[in-house]
C-alpha cells in the first residue's frame, strides 16, 4: 500500500514536470500578439485580471470578478471592441501579495496582456513600481488617493471616487447638517484602512469641523464596544467608516447597543447589500458612498447590465453592487481599448485613458475624466442612505466644495 502511494506521488511529480515543460513553447513574446494582425478578423486583445475569489475578500471579490467577466462576454457577443474580441486572462490570487506578484508576472510576461484589472490595496501598491516599469495600464479595486498622481504612478488609473474624495464629499455633507460637527474616522490597520486618514483629517480642519480622532476596528472584529465608547468619549457625532462589510456591521451594531448618537458615514467597501443583512435594523439611517451604483437603480448603463444578466438567467436579486462594479470595470477598460485604436500597447491605452473627458457611464457610477496630470477619474460622488432596509440615493453626484 505504502509503496503504491509513493509511486503515485512519483508519477504526479513527473506529470507535473512535463506540465511545466510543455506549456513553455506556447508562450508568446510579450506584447507581440495583439499588434500584428491588421486584417479582419482582428486578433483578440489580451487583458489581464487579478481577482480574489477564494481569499480574505472573496465575499466582495467574487461578484466583482463575475461582473468583469459578464461584461467581457457581453462586449464579445456584440462583436468585441471595433471587431477585436477581448481575451480576458485572469488569475485568482486569494488576496495574497506574493501570489499577486506571480500572477502579474504571468499575465504580463507570459500571456502578454496589455492592461490589467487588479483588486486589493496592498497588492496594487506592491506592484506599482513593476507597473510603471512594464508600462501596463492598471485599474484596480483600490481607490487610494496615493495612486492618482501620474508623476509617481504613471500607469495606475482610479475609476471611482478615491477614499479621500469620498470622505471630502461626506465631510461637506456633515458640515451641511451641522456646522460645528465633531468628526472622526473608524479604520483598520491596513493600507486600505489608512488610505483616507490624512486627507480626511486635513479637509475636516479646512472646512472648519473639529477632528476628534480615529479609532481602529480590526477587519475580524466581533464587537466594537470599546471603540464606540471611545468615540462617545471623544464626543464625535459624524464618523467616517473605512472598513469592509463585516467590520462596518459590527461597528453599527455596537453603536446601537451603546445608544450612541452618532451618524456613521461609510466609504466604498463599507457600503453594500450584505451590510444591511448583517447589521439588520442597526443599519437604518446609515449613509454611505458606494464606488458604483446598485443594480436596482435606473440608467441606461445599469439596464444594459441587468438585461444581459437576465439573458444569462441571472435574476436581478442575485446581482449586487459589487457585480455592478465589476461590470463597470469591464466597460471602462473596453472604452479605453476602443480609444487606443488598432495597436493597444500600454502607452496607447494610457493615452486613451487620458482622453476620457466626462465619460458617462450611464448611471453605473460617477462620470470619468482623466488627464495627463491627474489619474483620479471620478471627481464627484453620490451619497446613499439605508431607508427601510434598502440603499437609496439621497443626493446627486456632488463634487467636494473646496
Amino acid at each position, binding site marked *: 500500500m505504502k509503496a503504491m502511494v509513493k509511486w503515485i506521488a512519483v508519477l504526479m511529480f513527473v506529470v507535473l514536470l512535463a506540465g511545466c515543460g510543455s506549456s513553455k513553447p506556447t508562450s508568446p513574446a510579450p506584447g507581440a500578439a495583439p499588434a500584428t494582425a491588421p486584417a479582419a478578423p482582428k486578433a483578440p486583445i489580451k487583458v489581464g485580471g487579478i481577482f480574489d*475569489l*477564494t481569499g*480574505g475578500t*472573496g*465575499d466582495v471579490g*467574487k461578484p466583482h470578478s463575475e461582473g468583469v467577466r459578464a461584461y467581457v462576454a457581453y462586449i464579445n457577443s456584440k462583436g468585441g471592441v471595433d471587431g477585436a474580441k477581448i481575451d480576458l486572462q485572469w488569475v485568482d490570487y486569494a488576496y495574497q501579495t506574493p501570489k499577486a506578484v506571480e500572477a502579474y508576472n504571468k499575465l504580463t510576461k507570459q500571456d502578454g496582456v496589455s492592461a490589467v484589472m487588479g483588486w486589493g490595496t496592498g497588492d496594487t501598491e506592491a506592484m506599482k513600481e513593476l507597473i510603471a516599469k512594464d508600462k501596463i495600464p492598471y485599474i484596480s479595486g483600490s481607490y487610494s488617493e496615493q495612486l492618482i498622481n501620474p508623476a509617481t504612478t504613471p500607469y495606475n488609473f482610479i475609476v471611482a471616487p478615491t477614499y479621500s474624495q469620498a470622505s471630502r464629499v461626506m465631510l461637506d455633507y456633515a458640515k451641511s447638517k451641522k456646522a460645528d460637527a465633531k468628526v472622526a474616522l473608524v479604520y483598520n*490597520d491596513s493600507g486600505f484602512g489608512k488610505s483616507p486618514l490624512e486627507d480626511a483629517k486635513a479637509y475636516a480642519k479646512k472646512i472648519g469641523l473639529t477632528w476628534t*480622532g*480615529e*479609532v*481602529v476596528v*480590526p*477587519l*475580524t*472584529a*466581533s*464587537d466594537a*464596544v*470599546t*471603540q464606540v*465608547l*471611545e468615540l462617545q*468619549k471623544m464626543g464625535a457625532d459624524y464618523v467616517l467608516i473605512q472598513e469592509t*462589510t*463585516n467590520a462596518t*456591521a*459590527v461597528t453599527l*451594531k*455596537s453603536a*446601537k*447597543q*451603546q*445608544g450612541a448618537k452618532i451618524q456613521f458615514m461609510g466609504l466604498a467597501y463599507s457600503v453594500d447589500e*450584505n451590510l444591511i*443583512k*448583517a*447589521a*439588520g*435594523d*442597526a443599519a437604518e439611517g446609515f449613509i454611505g458612498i458606494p464606488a458604483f451604483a446598485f443594480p436596482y437603480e435606473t440608467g441606461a448603463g445599469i439596464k444594459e447590465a441587468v438585461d444581459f444578466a437576465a439573458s444569462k438567467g441571472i435574476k436581478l436579486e442575485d446581482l449586487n453592487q459589487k457585480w455592478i462594479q465589476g461590470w463597470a470595470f469591464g466597460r471602462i477598460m473596453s472604452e479605453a481599448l476602443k480609444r487606443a485604436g488598432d495597436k493597444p500597447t500600454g502607452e496607447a491605452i494610457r493615452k486613451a485613458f487620458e482622453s476620457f473627458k466626462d465619460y458617462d457611464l450611464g448611471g453605473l457610477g460617477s462620470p470619468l475624466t482623466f488627464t495627463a496630470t491627474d489619474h483620479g477619474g471620478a471627481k464627484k460622488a453620490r451619497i446613499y442612505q439605508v431607508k427601510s432596509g434598502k440603499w437609496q440615493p439621497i443626493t446627486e453626484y456632488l463634487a467636494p466644495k473646496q
Partner: protein
Amino acid sequence: MSGSMSFLLNLLVNGIVVGALYSLIALGFVLIYKASGVLNLAQGEMVLLGAYIGLTLTTGLKVPFLLGLVLAIGVSALVGMGIERVVLRPFIGEPPISIIMVTMGLSLLLRALMHFIWGTELRSFQGLFSNNPIVLGPVRLSEVFLWSFAAAIFLLIALTLFFKYSLLGIAMRATADDEQAALSMGISVKRVLGATWAVAAMVASVGGIFLGNIAGVNPLLTSYGLKVLPVAILGGLDSVPGAIVGGFVIGILENLAGGYLDTYWPGIKEVAPFIVLVIILLIKPYGLYGKEIIERV
C-alpha cells in the same frame, strides 16, 4: 456615577461577556490537548463549521433556534469524531511539528471545503436577537451578548459537572492523566479521544453560532482559532479551569487596552493578549494553572 466610572464599568462588563465566549472556544483547545497532546489549529475552522451548520438549520431549514442549536451541536459532535478518526488517529504519539502541521493542513482543507459548500459571502442569522440594548444602570448590553454569556456559563458549568461525575468524563480525565494506566484499567482510549473531539467540536459550534449572531457568518470567523490561543496558553494548555479564567482575563484585558491605550497605540487591543502571553510564558512557562513538567539533569 461619573463618566469615567461608567466608561470603566462598560469596558469591564463587555470584557466579561466577550471573555465567556473566549473561554468556551479555548476550552476546545484545552480538551483536545489534555486528552491527546494535540494542539488543534483547526479550532477556528470548527467554530466556523458550527456556525454554518447552525445557519443552515435555522435559516435554511427553518428549524426553531433552540432546537437548531441543539441539532447543530449534535451534528458538530459527529463531525468532530469523524475528524479524529480519519485525520488525527494516525498521529498519536508523533512529534509536535507533525501535529501542528497536520492540524494546519486540516484547517486549510476544512476551510476550502466549507468555502465549497457555503461560499464566502457574509451570511447572517435573521432577526433572532434584537439590536436594542438591555440597560442596567450605566451599563448597556446587547441581547445576543447576554444570551451568549448565559449559554457559555451554562456550558462551562455543565462540562465541569460532566468531568467530575459522569463515567465518560472520568474516563477522559484518566486518559489525559496517564494513557497507559487508563488502558490497563480497561478504558478504551480510542473511544475517549473520539469523545474528546466531539466535545471540542460541540463547544466550538456553540461559540460559532453565537459569534455568527453577533457579527454575521463568513470565513473571518476562523480567526477566533488564533485569537483564543493566548487564552488557552495563559490558563495552561491542559487546564480546564485555566481556560475559563484565561478567557475572562483576556477579555477584560483586551477591552481595557482598547479603552485606555488605543489613543496612544491604535490597534493595541488586538496585540495586547499576545504581549501578555509572551510575558506570562517567561514567568510561568506552563501558564497559570498548567501542569508543570519538571525535568532535571
